């Protein structure tokens, strides 16, 4: 973990219950080392992730947001991740238009058996966010609701 700066940043992860949350669990059970900046929010399906969740997180203090669901064709609810893909791609392209670096938001697909892939994703994404640094300056009043 030497490449990660000592100060933790705030990264929010939305993981679907059936695949990616399982993948994160697999990584944990296998005792894979992972950076600790990520706060996981479990959702029933990546299709449950309203793009506004991501915007809200970024506006209210998160430095990065990661969304992960089942691989396309493997959705527990058949097509939730197909809808998610369109919505998340829409946001991915909108963020830079607003002046928010699109690298602060990543979406991907990880299955319950892919503990290693999970470990690599979290590590790489956390590194990416550390390279970008904090999104909000500490003096900024992002007190939220």
């Amino acid at each position, binding site marked *: 973990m030497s490449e990660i700066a000592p100060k933790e940043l705030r990264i929010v992860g939305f993981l679907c219950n059936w695949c990616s949350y399982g993948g994160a669990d697999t990584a944990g059970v296998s005792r894979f080392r992972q950076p600790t900046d990520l706060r996981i929010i479990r959702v029933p399906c990546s299709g449950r992730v309203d793009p506004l969740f991501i915007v809200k997180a970024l506006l209210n203090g998160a430095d990065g947001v990661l969304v992960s669901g089942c691989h396309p*064709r493997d959705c527990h609810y058949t097509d939730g991740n197909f809808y998610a893909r369109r919505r998340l791609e829409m946001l991915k392209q*909108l963020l830079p238009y607003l*002046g928010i670096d699109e690298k602060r938001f*990543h979406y991907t697909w990880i299955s319950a058996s892919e503990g290693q892939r999970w470990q690599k994703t979290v590590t*790489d994404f956390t590194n990416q966010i550390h390279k970008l640094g904090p999104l909000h300056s500490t003096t900024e009043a992002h007190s939220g609701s």
Partner: protein
Amino acid sequence: MGPEKMKEIITDVLKDVDVVIGYKQGFDKLHATPCFINKAEQIEEIIWSPVCVQNLASFLPSLKAKKVGVVVKGCDSRTIVQYMQEGLIDRSKVVVVGIPCTGVVSVKKVLDKVNHQPIEDVVFEADGAILVKTPAGETKLSLADVSPDKCSTCLYPTPVVYDHLAAEPIKSVKAPEDVYKDVEEFEGKSLEERKVYWEKEFDRCIRCYACRNACPMCVCQDSCIAESRDPHWISQKSNLSEKFMFHMIHSIHLAGRCVECGECERVCPMGIPVNALKKKLNHDMKALYNYEPGVNPEDKPPMYTFSVEEKKIEEHKL
């Protein structure tokens, strides 16, 4: 482009609908106001000129129970097509009176030109000139100089859907590639410049929600999540992040649905370019799914559907 032919059509249409929505003169010659006609004697009130700016199609979802005739310009007609795509109206209960349009005025732009003097008279001449009379004298303007931005790139001067047409159809002379030129130009700016731009624009927002109320596609109205307390998406605090969030709600809920009627910008008291983010989204929808809102009733809005293999979406690498 007098309203005579339109009045004839409406006289006929009125026989088998509950109400016809058209324009009548407002408190002065620069302002038109929507009027709801259900008696033949009201037909004389009807006007048609470049001051008829409102998108009257917006009333249709709330009048779903009735049979309604509606007067629409080219741009407004796209609203009807979008409603059809989304199942928000029953097309068989709507009679569309289309008006081929050569452009409307922006009331704000005209008022700026005459220093916000009281309007005594407005005359539209055949060659596109506008004579505006105020106590300070007469000002001659050209329509092109006082049109809203949407008219300068309008591809659909003749309604895309209608049952009756009040004049000869007009062909667009505008280039389709110009529609999103502003979006592409803005994308040429640096991230920091864009951030500063939006912060400056959204900071002026007073969250009056006029933009949302006027938007024909904001059909949730009183159930809008910008105002609900449960869930509490945004608070009543008047700070930039709450204002920003409101605009993200409006934009994202309009993704691939905005018909670019420009009502949001027209009604904003703070002069915020409210339509700009939706145009960016439309630009992307066109690039990703070759989709354009409000043009073909058979189309499906891109966020209402998916392809198993998305041809244009690539996996993002870290």
